[in-house]
């Protein structure tokens, strides 16, 4: 185990673990979470797992299926595939999508290390060298310079810090590309505009598009299932419709008002595309939308055609091909339904993938107007069509800013205007807005749970955010006072659910997490019983 990890260590010592995560070295949390001995331990790999799995990075495994070569011939094959992928990343044909940002980030980093202190993972880890945003990027940069650029091998020998390319380097790089939330806070800090998050994503892309390596939750059970079956949840169209119909009936009973969700309404003004995971994990969210849209008299619909009832697009985390396929399908469905606009659900990466990144994939009549749920809800709340009583939300509320909506799209204020109006005890975290910290589930990490990855994403990736949440409510630590973290993004909510459960934050501090639409419905005058059921989150 290396305490002073060097860049050149990365390709050495084969199966040996490069660094270790111990809870003692992580940044301390505020009370009552400051006693390490009272927290669940970090799940360590068993001897059997260490034997079977590739675990040569930090003792964490995000992808159990990562292959181990049987002989030198097979190792050589992987190295050749990797070099081939590097070349494709630098080619116009295969990577026009991100070639300019990638080349600039490879060639012009001035190594000032300003970005490191922006990274919540690096900070939370107690500044473990491995998690510097620049560590991963510099390895990648040196490999590109050595193996792709003319005269690279000679220059690598003359320069200090020559990195060998072997199976160890490749597998460690693969794992390390999934120790980044792609939140781009480091990019914001960089005076040169170098994008370390993009480099992490390009690495993931190389592994996926050339070697076929990607976390099963993002690929096999992610985009593949999404495109074939309709949703990474595994829900087929009929099941999705049945589930929502069941929820309509259930919530009609609970709320005392008629809840109905329209499907496949041709010519509707709005096609709303939820994350289907909300139907399964946070059913109050889609129902809240149904209540609000109906109460405001909006002409709207959901789509039942594959994959139109699930707005996620995991391609944005790791694969341009899959990103384009999902975005094109969504747009084709909207075109078929002849809707006037598409509204994103409460899903951060859906916003980024569909509203901006895919804006340059959807040409011609596929370029249908796409709007954020934040502006949609703001317009709805302040339209005067629905009566609200903010005193129904008189409990402490704080807002988590999903990186993909706020830092990446600049949608900052609409959600705040709603919360300032409807939640008398709304308070900000520090920092917030475009300076926020990621929840730790960004970059697809929230849905990844192979081997002991959940322990890492809760303990390390989500640590800064959990600290922020506890600090935001520090004036009212009593667990009897119920507190609400508003996270208008499914993946963020899933990560929060993991974090709050791991630390027992509901029991110790009375903290729960939910979406924005639920808070709005909770404040509706026409909803007699509280919509937010504190025991069920």
């Amino acid at each position, binding site marked *: 185990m290396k305490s002073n990890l060097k860049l050149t260590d990365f390709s050495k010592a084969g199966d040996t673990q490069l660094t270790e995560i111990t809870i003692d070295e992580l940044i301390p949390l505020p009370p009552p979470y400051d006693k390490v001995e009272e927290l669940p331990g970090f799940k360590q790999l068993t001897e059997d797992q260490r034997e079977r799995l590739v675990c040569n990075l930090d003792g964490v495994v995000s992808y159990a299926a990562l292959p181990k070569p049987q002989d030198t011939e097979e190792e050589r094959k992987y190295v050749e595939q990797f070099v081939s992928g590097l070349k494709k990343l630098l080619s116009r044909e295969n990577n026009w999508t991100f070639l300019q940002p990638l080349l*600039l980030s490879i060639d012009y980093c001035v190594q*000032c290390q300003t970005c*490191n202190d922006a990274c919540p993972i690096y900070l939370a880890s107690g500044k473990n060298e491995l998690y510097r945003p620049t560590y991963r990027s510099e390895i990648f940069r040196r490999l590109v310079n050595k193996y792709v650029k003319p005269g690279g091998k000679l220059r690598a020998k003359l320069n200090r810090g020559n990195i060998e390319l072997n199976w160890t380097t490749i597998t460690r790089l693969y794992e390390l590309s999934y120790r980044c939330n792609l939140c781009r806070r480091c990019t914001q800090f960089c005076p040169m505009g170098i994008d370390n998050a993009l480099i992490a994503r390009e690495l993931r892309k190389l592994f996926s598009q*050339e070697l076929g390596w990607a976390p099963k939750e993002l690929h096999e059970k992610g985009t593949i299932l999404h495109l074939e079956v309709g949703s990474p949840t595994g829900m087929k169209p009929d099941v999705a419709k049945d589930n929502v119909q069941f929820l309509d009936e259930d919530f009609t009973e609970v709320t005392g008002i008629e809840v109905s969700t329209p499907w496949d309404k041709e010519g509707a003004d709005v096609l709303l595309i939820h994350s289907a995971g909300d139907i399964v994990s946070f059913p109050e969210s889609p129902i809240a939308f149904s209540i609000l849209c109906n109460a405001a008299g909006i002409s709207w619909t959901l789509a039942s055609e594959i994959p139109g009832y699930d707005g996620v697009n995991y391609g944005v985390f790791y694969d341009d091909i899959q990103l384009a396929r999902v975005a094109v399908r969504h747009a084709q469905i909207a075109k078929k339904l002849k809707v006037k606009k598409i509204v994103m659900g409460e899903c951060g990466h859906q916003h980024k993938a569909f509203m901006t990144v895919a804006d340059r994939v959807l040409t011609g009549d596929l370029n249908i*107007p796409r709007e954020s749920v934040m*502006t949609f809800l703001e317009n709805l709340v302040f339209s005067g069509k629905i009566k609200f009583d903010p005193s129904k939300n008189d409990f402490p509320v704080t807002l988590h800013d999903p990186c993909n909506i706020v830092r990446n799209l600049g*949608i*900052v*204020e609409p959600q705040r205007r709603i919360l300032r109006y409807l939640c008398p005890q709304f308070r900000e975290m520090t920092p917030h*807005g475009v300076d926020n910290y990621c929840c730790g589930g960004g970059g697809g990490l929230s849905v990844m749970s192979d081997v002991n990855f959940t322990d890492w994403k809760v303990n390390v990736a989500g640590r800064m955010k959990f600290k922020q949440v506890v600090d935001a409510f520090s004036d009212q630590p009593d667990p009897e006072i119920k507190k609400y973290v508003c996270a208008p993004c499914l993946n963020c909510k899933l990560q929060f659910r993991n974090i709050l459960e791991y630390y027992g934050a509901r029991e110790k501090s009375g903290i729960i997490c939910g979406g924005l639409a639920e808070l709005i419905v909770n404040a509706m005058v026409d909803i007699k019983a509280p919509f937010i059921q504190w025991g069920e989150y």
Partner: protein
Amino acid sequence: MSGIVWHIFAFGVIGVFLFVVTYRTLAISRLPVHLRWELAPIPHEKGKNRYGGSYLEEYEWWNRPQHKSRIVPMVYMAKEIFLLRGIWEHNRALWPLTFAFHMGIYVFIGMLFLNVVNAVFIIAEVPLSVLNVSLVIASAFALVGYLLGGLGTIGLLLKRALDRNLRPFNTISTYCNLLFLGAVFISGGYAWLHSGDFASGMSLFIKRLITFYAGITVAFPLSLHLVIVLSFILYLPFTDMIHFIAKYFTYHAIRWDDAPQDKKMEKELRGLLAQPVTWSASHVQSDGNKNWTDIATAEMGDEK
């Protein structure tokens, strides 16, 4: 060095510098349009840039005019370039040295420009009183530039060599670049101290260059400095020190590029989408002939 050699050397260096810088700038600017990858805050977002908001905060943004500020991005970049705002805000410990270093370069460039002006003044035979003032200013610029640049360079060399946060990322070229720049500033300071009237010597040299006077002679300290400066200008465009060009693109063409697709862009995009895809993973389903559009719109089969 005889007169004609100075001409060949100086104009050759300037020619190579301009050619390589132009080539590298065009190479970046001609890269294909990329997928949108903007990052807040975007300073041209009028009324919203204060908190990092964008036009996407508007209800049905496509029906509303986008109000763009031209001034705020310029002020932002001016602060970034001349005050190193980003380093000041996020890496304060590095700021004094890198500020001195960059300011030394800017003042040095200012001094070169002033001496070109002085050379023109000499050719135009402007009144001596005017020329003298201009020479004094150029001389002051030289002194300040060499001092700041020299201090900044030495400080950065030491910091890079000793700071455990920076040292692991240094390469031989990191040190070469700094040493070369250090040589520029130190030789300049030496020439300033030992050349009598430094600014006059510099202005006369430039005058003789631009008038193609064949009998150029330059005394030792200044000639050494000029050789080092010209060698550095020759070296510069081949290194990553031309990040001043890259920075334009990382900000304007990536971080701040929030332009929605328009007709002109669509035409370029259609061309890009018609390119063949050769990624090898099985789920891509490329056969070497399929293009991006074929692959993105193909029906899904067994492609795990």
